[in-house]
């Protein structure tokens, strides 16, 4: 069964200034073990979509199934939220407790997990994100990347089936970003954790199995990173960056160089160019 099965999802925000159509018929399926990147310009509806994954928002039309459970069913709310963990943008605004280990324990405590098992889960989760040395630290003294790793540990401790990161690297410096990215990549590759990464950074998106492009509340493009970034004209028209290496290699190929079609990073491009000699 697919972890996430979204069909014809609509969402309209109703505010003082009228209505905003944020989602206008999104179809999206995420299977077990996948690592999906979602990209799209500001206001395209990415966060709104993410909030439908764990029933923070409910469909205005269409449906969202999480491991087969319909998010509209009130009785299933807490099962859905347990299965879909979410890491938000601001590291500071999602840490609840005054000590790292207490914060990691927050989710399991809410789920009513017995104390002995909470202790085990806290240990394991902190190890999974390489933060076991910071157990008793105060969160406000950690770096941004460390705070986000604590947030990830707090979600892992709930034993979710899907982790969603909504621009979780946006507020971080390059070091913090690479810490969080390598953590999530390792969780996906080695432990088979399914992940959805919403990002503005194309160098992060190229690491996913699949890239989904959202614009004006609809999925406009979906495929492997190589497939998606080969459409650089469309992406640029949508106001998105294309990884420089990807664009350059396509332009070089168009002008006659025999380069393969799947180049995404500068290292790959350099390797291929060297091979031409």
């Amino acid at each position: 069964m697919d972890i996430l099965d979204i069909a014809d999802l609509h969402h309209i925000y109703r505010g003082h200034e009228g209505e905003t159509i944020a989602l206008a018929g999104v179809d999206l399926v995420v299977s077990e073990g996948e690592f999906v990147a979602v990209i799209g310009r500001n206001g395209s509806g990415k966060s709104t979509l993410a909030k439908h994954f764990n029933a923070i928002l409910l469909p205005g039309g269409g449906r969202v199934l999480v491991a087969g459970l319909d998010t509209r069913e009130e009785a299933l709310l807490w099962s859905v939220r347990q299965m879909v963990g979410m890491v938000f943008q601001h590291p500071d605004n999602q840490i609840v407790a005054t000590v790292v280990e207490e914060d990691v324990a927050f989710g399991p405590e809410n789920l009513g997990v017995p104390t002995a098992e909470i202790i085990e889960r806290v240990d394991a989760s902190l190890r999974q994100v390489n933060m076991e040395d910071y157990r008793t630290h105060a969160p406000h003294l950690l770096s941004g990347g460390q705070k986000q790793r604590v947030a990830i540990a707090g979600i892992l401790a709930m034993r979710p089936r899907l982790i969603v990161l909504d621009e979780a690297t946006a507020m971080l410096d390059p070091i913090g970003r690479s810490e969080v990215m390598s953590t999530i990549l390792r969780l996906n590759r080695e432990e088979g954790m399914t992940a959805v990464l919403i990002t503005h950074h194309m160098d992060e998106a190229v690491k996913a199995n699949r890239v989904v492009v959202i614009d004006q509340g609809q999925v406009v493009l979906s495929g492997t990173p190589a497939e998606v970034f080969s459409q650089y004209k469309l992406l640029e028209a949508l106001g998105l960056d294309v990884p420089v290496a990807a664009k350059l290699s396509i332009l070089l190929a168009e002008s006659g160089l025999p380069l393969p079609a799947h180049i995404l990073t500068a290292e790959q491009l350099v390797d291929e160019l060297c091979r031409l000699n």
Partner: protein
Amino acid sequence: MSMMQQITLGQYLPGKSVVHRLDPRTKLLMAFGFIMVLFIITAGWVEYGILGLAALLIIYTAKLPLGMVLRGLRPILIILSLTIVLHIFSTRTGTLLFRLWFLEVYSGGVNQGFLLAARLVLLVLSTSVLTLTTSPIALTDAIEFVLKPFKRIGLPAHELAMMMTIALRFIPTLIEEAERIMKAQLARGADFESGGLIKRAKSLLPLLVPLFISAFRRADELAMAMEARCYRGGDGRTKFKVLRYTKLDFYAWTCFVAVSALAFYVSYAL
């Protein structure tokens, strides 16, 4: 970090002493019990001497620097002197000591004033020892436990404890933010220091407005993050850190009962 270093949160002084290792519930209830005893026994120097000695012994066992404990009295210095002065001039018992223009000072007034001041000092000392030897988290857990019985009459024990935790969590974050905004305003030529009280208060407005706006935004995001992590109030919630009484707590309560009994005996039987 400058402001952060000035404010010692909850004044907790980590340590490994016997007093530190007591269950926070024991310490919370004892501090409360100490204050009750203080108010029930008749005011007298022997009674307060016994309680004061007990307090000093606890401070010594907890290895707290006496200077630091006494510094905790600074905020009540004005109240202390006011208490003493008022009693000296208003109580007219005992012998007339001297006359200052139209004010008459009696020995009873002096005695009464200093006794009440001693009671206040003991009251503050007991709460200082509690907060100096108990981490804020442990204290929060203890408060939640102690308030639980009052849930039936509608006291939201869990919610109060959660509010305390979140306040403790966000105070450093908000202080950092206040410093950042202040620096930004200073760089634009703001002046927080000069002028009278009203002008200074007014100059704080450009600091407070963005701080409040951001605090509300934080609260909003935190609420969503908590809901996403299945927070739904205190019902059905389990605990990561479970409070546990040890033999130490038994010994402590024994000492407490003994000291209180002695104070009551001196107060009422002699």
